[in-house]
């Protein structure tokens, strides 16, 4: 039976793809106008900040050997647990829908200007649904298969970008708008790593809970460096002053690179890998959302609930009128709420578990 369960590497792949695509969307645009050239510090600080609650959370996971929802329910009681986990469910439902419409706007702005937005959204949702209905093992394997190609494409992009004129002097003044701003933004945006906690939803489909902790730690350390590295690249190539107004620096980076004098304008090749990674990402989110729902409300068959959840996401995703409202208003708010909630949740659970222990011992 263990044959069709997820291991450490699948989990690392899922984390690397879901979080590792964040520097390619509008997330940098939420950060650069605030922290400028010091933005590269934000992923590192944020990772350091989330490391503490994550450590507590992993400790609890290993102790009780339960998935996210079951753990919350066990420690905080049935009623409060349901409230908490339905909050996580709604957070995921709304967050994913807005993120999806974010990506639709990116695609329609840069690559498919004449295609109606809802068509891109529906095609994206249908493809993700197709993979998600294959179940958790299929998702994990897809992520693992796709990961090397995405990584190679990213590495190639970095190597080609290095040929362009880069100037490390752009990284100065080193603290941008000040260290206090960097720390504050790092805290507010620490939910960029929230997947390291929420992907514990996959635990029922894993062979061992220990493997999840291992994957979360490996994933977080790789991601912090990867993201910081990319932000540094954006700054050294474009200068932080330009990045303040430049939408989607990753897409700009793919347009800047050239392969010799004759091969230029090949952003389309990077688009393929970016799209594949995005599709895997949404598949994961879709499945997690559906699974959160079934676990929270104790209903069976996650697969059966994929259809209504997908439909709901498409409907919510159609709500924002443009990238500015989807990304800057809604997603920013969702990110901030998530940062506070997921930062506090592990501490809360920990206190509850200590109380439980205390009340159980006499």
């Amino acid at each position, binding site marked *: 039976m263990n044959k069709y369960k997820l291991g450490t590497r699948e989990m690392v792949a899922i984390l690397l793809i879901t979080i590792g695509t964040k520097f390619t969307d509008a997330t940098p645009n939420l950060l650069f106008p605030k922290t400028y050239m010091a933005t590269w510090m934000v992923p590192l600080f944020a990772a350091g900040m989330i490391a503490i609650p994550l450590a507590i959370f992993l400790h609890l996971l290993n102790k009780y050997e339960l998935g996210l929802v079951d753990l919350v329910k066990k420690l905080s009681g049935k009623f409060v647990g349901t409230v908490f986990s339905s909050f996580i469910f709604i957070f995921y439902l709304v967050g994913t829908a807005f993120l999806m419409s974010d990506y639709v706007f990116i695609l329609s702005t840069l690559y498919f200007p004449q295609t109606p937005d809802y068509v891109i959204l529906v095609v994206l949702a249908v493809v993700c649904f197709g993979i998600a209905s294959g179940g958790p093992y299929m998702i994990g394997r897809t992520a693992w298969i796709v990961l090397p190609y995405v990584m190679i494409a990213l590495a190639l992009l970095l190597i080609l970008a290095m040929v362009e004129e880069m100037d490390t002097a752009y990284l100065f003044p080193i603290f941008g708008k000040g260290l206090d701003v960097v720390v504050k933004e790092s805290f507010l945006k620490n939910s960029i790593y929230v997947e390291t906690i929420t992907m514990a939803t996959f635990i029922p489909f894993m062979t061992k809970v220990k493997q999840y902790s291992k994957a979360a730690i490996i994933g977080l350390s790789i991601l912090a460096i990867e993201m910081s590295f990319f932000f540094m690249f954006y700054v050294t190539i474009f200068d932080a002053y330009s990045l303040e107004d430049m939408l989607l620096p990753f897409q700009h980076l793919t*347009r800047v690179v050239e392969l010799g004098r004759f091969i230029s304008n090949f952003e389309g090749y990077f688009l393929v890998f970016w799209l594949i990674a995005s599709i895997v990402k949404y598949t994961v989110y879709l499945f997690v959302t559906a699974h959160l729902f079934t676990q929270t409300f104790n209903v069976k068959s996650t697969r059966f609930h994929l259809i209504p959840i997908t439909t709901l996401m498409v409907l919510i995703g159609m709500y924002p009128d443009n990238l500015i409202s989807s990304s800057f208003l809604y997603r920013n708010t969702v990110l901030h709420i998530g940062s506070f909630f997921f930062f506090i949740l592990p501490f809360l659970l920990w206190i509850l578990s200590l109380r439980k222990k205390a009340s159980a011992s006499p």
Partner: protein
Amino acid sequence: MKKIMFIIPLSIFILTGCWDKHEIEEQAFVVVIGLDDSEKEDGVSVTYQIANPQVGIPNTGGEKEVASEIITFTAPDFITARDLANATVARKVNFAHTKAMVIGEDFIRTEKAKKFLTSGIRDREIRRDIQVVVSKEKAADFIKNNNPNLETRPHKFYDLMTGRWAETGLVPLSDLQRYFQRIESKNDAYLAIYATTEKSDDDKYGNEDDYLPGQIDQKGSSRTQLIGSALLKDGVMIGTLTGEETRSALNLRSKSIAKYMRVTYKDPFNKKYRVAALLTKPRSNKIEILTQEVTPKVNVTIPLSFKILAIPSGENYVTNLENQELLRRHVEDTLKKKYNELVKITQEEYKINPFNWSRVARKNFLTMQEYEEYDWDDKYTNADVNIKVEVKFTGFGKQLGPPKVDEKDEGK
């Protein structure tokens, strides 16, 4: 489920034909965009040079067609102008392969030009690697008159010409990306390629690089000259640099940019002749800016390698080490003088530096607030600039001593 798995791959084939399908046959690729002022307050005069991809290819029927079509009209901006262009061009106007943007000098000297130029970047087809060329005459005239004989296709000309910056340093690297960087950071001057197709009246006989476009006394059928640069402060042109000054400006920048500059220097022994050499910058400059005091101090050390190409005077600068040292000193002094003159012009006349020194000054500050308060651009005008040139001989070509010239013919 199986049905769905079948429908998804199938939809790939069906959906591609729906909306964003592009047939190359139906596209008109604009190679150059020209911008001039128009009489209308809220409009610009836009010129498109549209390439004909069929020309010159055998057996396509396009062998004898013209290489490009040039159209000029007044429009609210150069992006929406593409629909207006369809009044005469049957194909869909596409900017994806635009190589250069030519702007008339009269226009770029106004704030209006900056607004039109910066507003265009929003369009997805306008790429940041488009080269900015400032033409002495109207951009429309420049594009019309530019008729290179060696290049059949117009894009190739701009591609090759603007690519020469890396080798000769006579024109700067001036793409839209850098134009935006300078405007947005509000620091440093931007240098744009300066060009003309009209012969200037004040023909002069300068040395190898001391020209503005139009001044080179050349004879031939192509009248286009790209040399020197237009100096833009905050996106608006305020002055010009000759080819020589452009080279000096590039050398004063921190990064090593131009690879091969062929230059000549007055022969220290024989004032009638000049020593020809190939100048390269092997390493980045060492630039130090001290911002603690009221007047900032700038210390620049420029490492240069020097390869002798020709010694017309016949003096022995190769095996005679004393002469070699003398020439080295002489070159260092000449260069130092030139660099100092340029710095002085930029400080007094233009009041802004085209050497990207703000990037060095930035390093002295911890936060942007401190840096902005310091106001580097303002401080630069009184900065105490100290230039040191370090010339190293690295080659003498494939000849040792000079050929034996009869002493009688050579009056010393």
